[in-house]
């Protein structure tokens, strides 16, 4: 365990990581400086008989300096953060997505709803996948995040992505993954007794694999084919315990 972050696998991950390291360096320097001064003063000015402390009530010049410098630093950090934040969270700046899904959270499962054959969400042929969200690599994905009961939080550490899912709201979230693989999805907001086991998986496939998977799912959900091992399915409200189907390790 250390202060370095694990590699990130989303397009905006490196931006967040860079900001993190900038702040780490700045706060690290301030930390070392202040703690050093603290302990140095304690040592240097420890009590000696016959010496009197300097009778000083302070210095306006010093106050101005150590008001302005921190002010400039924190405002600079703030300004650097604005554009990254807007890029990730402000719907106006979202890239045009080719893939849209609904992710609906409930105690203690993740439902991913796909548009189905017609490519339109909210139609008859939408199909739902439980806990294992499949997306193609190198494509911006737009997730309409919903919650059915209480607040959950959609957290994919490897993407540096987090967004609360709030009942009564549909919150747009986007991400683009840079490498195929399986990435853990967790719930980051206390949502009841099963909060700790509300995990899921983002399965990132190459464009070809994804097309194959999607076609297979469409076929399966329209009843054209029987389920095979790769299918993890559930209709909304399914109470089935899915723990056994998701024991895959980390990415």
């Amino acid at each position, binding site marked *: *365990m*250390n202060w370095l972050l*694990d590699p990130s696998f989303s397009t905006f991950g490196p*931006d*967040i990581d860079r*900001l*993190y390291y900038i*702040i780490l360096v700045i*706060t690290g320097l301030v*930390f070392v400086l*202040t703690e050093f001064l*603290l302990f140095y*003063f*304690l040592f240097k*000015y*420890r009590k*000696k008989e016959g010496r*009197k*402390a*300097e*009778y*000083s*009530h*302070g*210095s306006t010049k010093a*106050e101005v300096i150590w008001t302005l410098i*921190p*002010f400039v630093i*924190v405002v600079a*950090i*703030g300004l650097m*953060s*604005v554009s*990254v*934040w807007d890029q*990730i*969270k*402000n719907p106006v700046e979202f890239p045009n997505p080719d893939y849209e899904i609904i992710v609906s959270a409930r105690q203690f499962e993740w439902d991913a709803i796909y548009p189905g054959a017609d490519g339109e969400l909210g139609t008859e042929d939408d199909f739902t996948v439980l806990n294992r969200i499949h997306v193609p690599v190198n494509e911006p994905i737009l997730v309409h995040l919903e919650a059915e009961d209480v*607040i959950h*939080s959609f*957290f994919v*550490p490897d993407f540096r*992505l*987090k*967004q*609360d899912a*709030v*009942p*009564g*709201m549909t919150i747009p979230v986007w991400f683009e993954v840079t490498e195929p693989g399986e990435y*853990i999805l*967790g719930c*980051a*907001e*206390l949502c*009841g*007794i*099963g909060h700790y086991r509300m995990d899921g998986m983002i399965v990132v496939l190459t464009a070809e694999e994804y097309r194959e998977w999607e076609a297979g799912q469409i076929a399966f959900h329209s009843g054209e084919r029987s389920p095979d091992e790769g299918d993890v399915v559930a209709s909304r409200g399914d109470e089935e315990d899915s723990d056994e189907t998701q024991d*895959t390790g*980390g990415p």
Partner: protein
Amino acid sequence: MSATAAAKTDWDQPGFAGGEHHEPSFIRKYIFSTDHKIIAIQFLVTSLFFLIVGGLLAVMIRWQLGFPGAPLPGGDLLPDTMAPGGIILPEFYNAMVTMHGTFMIFFAIMPLMVGVFGNLLIPLQIGAGDMAFPKLNMLSFWLAVPAGFIMLASFFVEGGAAGAGWTAYAPLSADGEYTGVYLGQQLWLVSLFILGFSSIAGAVNYVTTIINMRAPGLTWFRLPLTIWSLFITSFLVLLAIPILAGALIMLLTDQTLGTTFFLPAGGGEPLLWQHLFWFFGHPEVYILILPAMGIVSDILSNGARKPVFGYHAMVLAIIAIAFLGWIVWGHHMFMSGMNPMLGTTFMITTMVIAVPSAIKVFNWLGTLWRGNIEFHAPLLYSVGFVSLFIVGGLSGIFMASTPVDIYIHDTYFIVAHIHYVLFGGSLFAIFAGITFWYPKMFGRMMSSFWNKIHFVLTFIFYSMAFFPMHGLGLEGMMRRLYDPTQYAYLAELQPWNQFISISVFLLAATQVIYFANFTLSLWKGEKATANPWRANSLEWSVPSPPPHGNFERIPIVYRGPYEYSSPESDEDFYPQFVPPRQKTAPRPEPQPTAD
């Protein structure tokens, strides 16, 4: 028109000079007392009790996190609804997490800061005989006690204690269906509502007393920073607690009367709860830390035998924090789904509020600079406060930056941060304050040796317990997980969780030293003189402990509270109450106290 003018408005003021001098009965003196010093001790005892409760909960939480699924030693004693066979159930874990936060914030740190130091120090440091409204003061304490016991009792009702976190986010908290906790959550709400009355009663008292009952000569800028911080804190209490009260009522009717303020099924808004809660909750954070800053400023100056560096800047920083504290609440909600533009606004205000905190840190360093530092135990705790508060303040910058917060929000990084400011910050200041004013409360000194042992061990085990939590957060470990090994990538971190848990057990065990020292010193401690720390403020002009009514006659204040090493004095301190013309050494002993 100097001191005599006080007489014109005396009909609502208790007598300065002790007033009635009949010996009150035991019950009037120690149970239903209106003496601010007794009430302070009552708050001290009850909040230390709840500190222990909160601490035991923390130990059990850490047991589960370090050794998930292993039977808790001694856990057989717990009922089967909590831990059958000693194995902690997830619902009991959630209840413990909720109640640990609730007890620590509302029933330990807050009453320790405001109830104990506010009650003890305000009249003594401003030269008043008691609070403006002694009976209201008594009421304040006797509302806090039932509130605490209602909270405690909620563990033993059907369904157990509230399990929606100390922040009680709706809808999880708004409908028992989601947690299986009905009555427990309602008792939680009722208890905090009652506690709110207690806090407001206290705050009305403090503000009135500080404004109206300062001794002659004690102008605003001669007040000790402890008083300044308590004064500003009282305003925060006055203005923030009613917001919480309103929110609690709405949540309670959602639970009981079928309203839907926070339930989307009936049109309610879950985010409304969060806005109300954090509009209260962020000022609450400063309620918990501002008095600590005041106490530490006083003690550092006393230990360094040097005036506080930049007194006016310190006062302004407190006021600035209190003002800015009202416009930063949204930084708790960056991930909540509120408008991202608001996120940017709240980020900027949050960044700005870091500045007054930085000013305070630099001024503390400035206070030590060129001092003649005497390492008494309260100074050590205060230095501990400064060094840990620096970490807590700096880690706040990470989460203030909205993009970085996307990653670390609701992870152990946040857990580390809150414990750095509330334990490393507030609780270290509380240790400092209790140790410093122990002689004034009880007339005896705590054992300095054992205090120092306690300080060193606490500092080490504290750092071992909480510093690695930053790392866990950076690895992506979420908060409030009953069993982190459920996630494969977190299972790899289990050795760290065990290390933290063992550190917490050691940290908890170390606190026995402090409690033993506290208790034994009541009888065995060295008898305290009136001014054992050779300090300047008014409480040191009267015997330890001061008599009922505090001052034999109204003290007159000649200077600020930090005149250490003043060239006008032959000694290295120059109390506020010593008249200036006297060119001989100021007497450490008080003005004539008759007998």
